[in-house]
């Protein structure tokens, strides 16, 4: 008998990975935009993701929908618990979403610059906040179950703890590196060289931050490491992570940007994978009583019938989505060519 709860844990994980890998480079490009002064480079940057960013963002929306459908208790508890942080996240995402078209429809250079800034800040914010959210979940949230009711006492200031901010910065640097590597595929000449430098620098920053974060996790949330050393899946993901991260500077040097991007994608996927694996079977650990109050894939899930129905929906829908997404990425592969229809 297959365990639908585990399948949905994996599927939500896949959606998060899809989002982090795909919209991850959009966010990274946005962060780089914040530091790009050259007008033409900014135009190339935003147009490098122009045709695809919206589809990429749908992974987040679908992930939200899937979480609601499969684990409604988590959807309700975490989102209402992170209220102010979530409203800020939405605020950033709203501005990013309009910045592309608003930039295109604006004529004056000043107005275009304003929308570049909106795009940049609208990417910087989420790139940071996603990590902060993950950090908070790893630490555990103040959740209790009293008389069968879930009681949470999450405060905005509580969310902004040093450990979670550290994970936030780790995510920010990781997405920036991912965006820079994406841009190496899309740019040429001097602009490309700048992106290689960005990728190399963020790569170093990423390694330093990753080591510090892992060490901090030993102290902040040691339970995450329980049983990991004996788990072959842990080692598989960890080796994938090591290989991909080692390959990145090698690939950049050899100018094999496509492979480097793939390595960066694998790096992100294995990090999310490791996070999910160490959390399993919990979804939201309780900092008050880990064993009894945590929200798990069993006590926070929908019924078997709903999980089964949703699985059928996913099995029909996701392959179709992947098929046309790949086709469209192929159409827009190669360097950015600016046309009348560009942003």
């Amino acid at each position, binding site marked *: 008998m297959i365990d639908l709860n585990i399948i949905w844990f994996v599927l939500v994980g896949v959606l998060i990975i899809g989002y982090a890998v795909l919209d991850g480079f959009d966010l990274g490009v946005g962060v780089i935009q914040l530091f790009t002064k050259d007008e033409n480079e900014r135009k190339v940057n935003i147009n490098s993701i122009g045709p695809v960013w919206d589809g990429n963002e749908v992974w987040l929306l679908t992930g939200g929908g899937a979480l*609601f459908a499969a684990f409604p208790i988590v959807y309700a508890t975490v989102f209402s618990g992170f209220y102010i942080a979530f*409203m800020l996240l939405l605020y950033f995402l709203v501005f990013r*979403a309009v910045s592309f078209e608003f930039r295109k429809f604006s004529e004056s250079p000043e107005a275009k610059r304003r929308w570049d800034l909106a795009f940049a800040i609208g990417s910087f914010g989420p790139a940071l906040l996603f990590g902060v959210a993950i950090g908070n979940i790893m630490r555990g949230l103040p959740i209790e179950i009293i008389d069968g009711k879930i009681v949470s006492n999450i405060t905005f200031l509580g969310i902004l703890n040093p450990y979670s901010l550290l994970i936030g910065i780790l995510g920010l640097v990781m997405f920036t590196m991912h965006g820079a590597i994406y841009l190496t595929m899309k740019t040429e000449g001097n602009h490309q060289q700048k992106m290689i430098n960005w990728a190399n620098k963020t790569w170093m920053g990423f390694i330093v931050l990753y080591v510090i974060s892992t060490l901090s996790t030993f102290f902040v949330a040691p339970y995450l490491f329980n049983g990991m050393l004996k788990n072959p899946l842990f080692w598989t993901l960890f080796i994938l992570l090591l290989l991909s991260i080692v390959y990145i500077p090698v690939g950049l040097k050899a100018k094999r940007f496509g492979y480097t991007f793939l390595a960066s994608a694998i790096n992100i996927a294995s990090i999310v994978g490791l996070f999910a694996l160490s959390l399993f079977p919990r979804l939201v650990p309780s900092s008050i009583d880990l064993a009894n109050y945590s929200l798990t894939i069993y006590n926070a899930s929908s019924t078997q019938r*709903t999980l089964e129905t949703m699985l059928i929906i996913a099995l029909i829908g*996701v392959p179709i*989505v992947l098929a*046309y997404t790949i086709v469209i990425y192929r159409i827009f592969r190669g360097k950015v060519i600016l046309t009348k229809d560009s942003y």
Partner: protein
Amino acid sequence: MDQVLLARIQFAMTIGFHFIFPPLTIGLAWMLVIFEAIGWKKKDEVYAAIGKFFGKILGLIFAVGVASGIVMEFQFGTNWAEYSKFVGDIFGAPLAAEGVFAFFLESTFLGLYIFGREKVSKGTHWFSIFMVAVGSTISGFWILVANSWQQTPAGYVVRNGRAELTDFWASVFNPSTMPRFYHTIDAALISAAFFVAGVSAYYLIKNKHTEVAKTSLRFAIVFGLIVSVLEVFPFGHEHAKQVAETQPEKFAATQGLYTSQEGAPIAIFAFPTDHPPTLKVPIEIPGLLSWMAFGDFKAKIKGINEFPRENIPPLFLTFVSYHNMVVLGMYFILIMAIASYLLYKKKLFENKKILTVLKWSVPLPLIAIQLGWIAAEVGRQPWIVYHLMKTKDAVSFTVGTGELLFSIILFALIYILLGSIFLVLLFKKIKHGPEPIAKEALQ
């Protein structure tokens, strides 16, 4: 102010703003499917120019729709946690299905449509707008499935303190899904028809881009007449019959029927008051309401008086928004009929009066949509899920009034800003107009 009221204000504001854009997206996308097809298949330069122009505007409208839609996907969790816990087993599935079957489709293919004009074959490019139209319509379907389940829940059982799914198809095709789907999608088509007609009329008044404007106006008028008629009959009528059958107190509230009657009249005009429920200075047509609801002039219809006081919706707002929606619906038919007649008599393009009316009518279908939605949602109160869960029990109790005020102000500011910038950019684009067509292509 209490949490529930604030959470409702925020939801009303965010959905109200969002609901301006998807109808235009759906409607324009379908019109573009036709424009681009004629431009491509018949090598018609005028239709190609219309497609290109309104295609760009679609990009702008879509962007604000996406931006404001992100908020909606997560707001059930942030602001309506108790609701989400209670209905998650049923309500989450349509939202996820909307993501998988619709959002990906429309977003991915819109990218191809906007950026691919010079990059892919004409056929592929047409296919991209077709997929945008299909995707946005499917999106409308699933969101209406979710909302209709709140109106007329089906395929569930209440167990373990929540609604649990027993029959997926019964929950998807609950009694109100299809009547509301047709009624809403057709409303989207009307909004786009009036949009295209209004913009074209503006050019004819200004005597600019006349070649393009005449063609797009001709199309929008005929299309607009058809969809405006369909909206009332059969779609509006079928929806009203369904409400009469499945949500009698909502039906009574929309119609202002405060005491049960046989041969109930239709109120054409009145001022409703809540305490006590009365219609002041009503103009009524006897028996018509009974006929409309049950096909029998003598049929008995339940009035508000038959329902417990605590279970009836706000009467004034429900009555007024419903009736103004109906008035606007009649107005759409009238205007499009007059314009079609003038078109037939070959007098439309010179008739400044009707062109001006068309120009100013652009926002009216969007207002009608808002009114219809208010009637639907306020008319369901005090329930968030009809006869299952009350709105007051559905909010996130962990979110305080201070936090709610913060987010309400935040969204109000963002939406005022985005809305104004959207209008400025839209007007600028319209003023600029479609790209000129080479003279030889016109002959």
